[in-house]
């Protein structure tokens, strides 16, 4: 019993260290680093939600930025046109908007597979992009909208933006991140998640077993939209500004890239991918304008040599070096 508990604890030990670092981070890090980490965590959430669709159900959406962007526009609109300044209400509305739009678009899109699915999601996301881009009177077009500092749990913060990001907003982000990762873990390991995985592997067979495949895909679509919406809402507050680029398909491509980078077959793959992506991109941009060259090369190498992503590839190498048999799955 004691031994069992001890092995459990040693297994949990790295997790506890990570949590401690997450919570203590603002105490020793400069404000820019806190901003960057918050940003990375939000992208990780988006990628995690997206991977339910992409990694599990095998649906490649090229329009996932739409839900992130719409989630980000909710606080933008509320700041500009109302006096609501509450993070909770913003979040709830972001969830509602992304869920409703995700449900509508998803309902239509899940009827299609493969390339048609990718093209349809792309078309719908670019529709929202061009709407936000062109209706200058309402959305300020390319200039985007300003997002105010939000009250959190009824407390309003009279402090500088930097202090706000480093303090209340960071902790709100971390808490929401942890909750959503937990929820994600439950979803991934639930019968629903396993069924989605089966659909991704062979949807004809799953259909044959009597599972309503399209409805399952639809649910996955909505869940991943909600993840994008929540992350987008927090991103809007974090950056203080939203513009249509948050909905552009290039960003959708980056979300896919994060998942592939980390490895789509593992739960933490997208999270690791998003963190890697943010830090590599930020630091490459500081010393070269040719970051696309680097990213393109990484992507090509990944697809050709490590289809399981950085984590999956590392895991395979590790197992091989231990002399274990490596199957198709990691």
């Amino acid at each position, binding site marked *: 019993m004691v031994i069992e508990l001890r092995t459990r604890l040693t297994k949990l030990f790295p997790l506890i260290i990570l949590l401690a670092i997450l919570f203590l981070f603002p105490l020793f890090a400069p404000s820019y680093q806190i901003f960057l980490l918050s940003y990375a965590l939000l992208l990780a959430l988006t990628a995690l939600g997206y991977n339910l669709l992409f990694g599990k159900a095998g649906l490649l959406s090229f329009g996932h930025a739409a839900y992130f962007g719409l989630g980000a526009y909710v606080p933008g609109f509320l700041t500009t046109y109302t006096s609501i300044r509450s993070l909770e209400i913003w979040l709830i509305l972001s969830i509602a908007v992304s869920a409703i739009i995700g449900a509508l678009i998803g309902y239509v899109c899940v009827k*299609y597979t*493969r390339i048609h699915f990718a093209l349809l999601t*792309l078309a719908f996301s670019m529709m929202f992009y061009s709407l936000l881009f062109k209706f200058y009177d309402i959305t300020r077009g390319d200039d985007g909208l300003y997002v105010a500092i939000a009250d959190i749990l009824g407390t309003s913060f009279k402090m500088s933006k930097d202090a706000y990001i480093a303090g209340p907003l960071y902790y709100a982000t971390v808490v929401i991140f942890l909750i959503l990762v937990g929820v994600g873990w439950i979803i991934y390991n639930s019968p629903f998640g396993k069924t989605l995985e089966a659909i991704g592997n062979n949807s004809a067979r799953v259909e044959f077993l009597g599972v309503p495949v399209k409805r399952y895909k639809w649910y996955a679509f909505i869940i991943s939209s909600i993840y994008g919406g929540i992350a987008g809402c927090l991103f809007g507050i974090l950056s203080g500004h939203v513009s249509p680029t948050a909905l552009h398909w290039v960003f959708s491509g980056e979300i896919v890239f994060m998942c*592939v980078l980390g490895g789509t077959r593992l739960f933490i793959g997208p999270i690791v991918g998003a963190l890697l992506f943010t830090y590599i991109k930020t630091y490459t941009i500081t010393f070269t304008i040719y970051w696309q060259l680097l990213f393109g090369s990484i*992507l090509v190498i990944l697809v050709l040599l490590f289809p399981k992503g950085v984590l999956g590839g590392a895991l395979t190498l590790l197992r091989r070096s231990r002399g274990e048999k490596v199957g198709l799955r990691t």
Partner: protein
Amino acid sequence: MLVLFSLGLNLIFSYLNVLNMAHGGFYTLGIYLSMTLATSIALKGLLPIQSILLLVIVAGGITGLLAFIVEPLLLRPVYIRGHADQLLLTYGLLLILDDLVKLGWGLELHSVPAAYYFLGTTPILGLSFPNYNFFLLLMSFTLALLLWFILYKTMFGKTCRAIAEHREMVSALGVNSAKFFTLIFAIGVVYAGWGGSLMMPLSGIFPGIGLEPLILSFIIVATGGLGSLKGAVVGAFIVGLVRSIGIGYFPEIELMIVYLIMAIILLIRPQGLFGKREIAW
């Protein structure tokens, strides 16, 4: 121009079954190559119409050469994988090509309107149309016909279509189908390069310029039908018409209407207007 771009994209999709996102990169490369050639040829004092024709052929050709490296090295290993891997690979390639252009030509905005002026304008119904536009139309039409001729009237085209139909059978007859794949990819890329070099005098030239035609072309081939050459031509006309009407009457939702049309057509006919029906899984 969009016709040429979409034809190349659709050619690659219908024979190689790969949706080539790097097409935008090849287009950009075509524009830049023809720009460099244009500025150097203008110095030697050739007539504009000849120089334009030369530019088009050479720039497209050079872009096509690149295909002989790209296809066997990068694309061939992913044919057996899913569409997702192929999309990602060509997306990576697009990023690489765009930055190579940045490395080679810098970040500035260029513009070479020489040919545009040299050919003069024609007044029609009180408006003056640049003659270059007619030339562009004529070239697009000719090159589209050329592709049709290659595919449907030559032995090469027949072999290509046979490979698309039944690759193993054709291989068994002693045809090196891998070589044909490379050639088809090269032709598709050449059409992207031609599209770029023909548009060169009309548009500002900057890195990443290939993104807009790429996305429009996705709409075109999806509307017209993935894998159908007729569909690419019709789709290009639909998108071109809708956009020019849209800019005139309702500029706010001009782009949105294009996407909306694509979505509606895909919903009613997922295979597009002229596409062949694909089995759902």
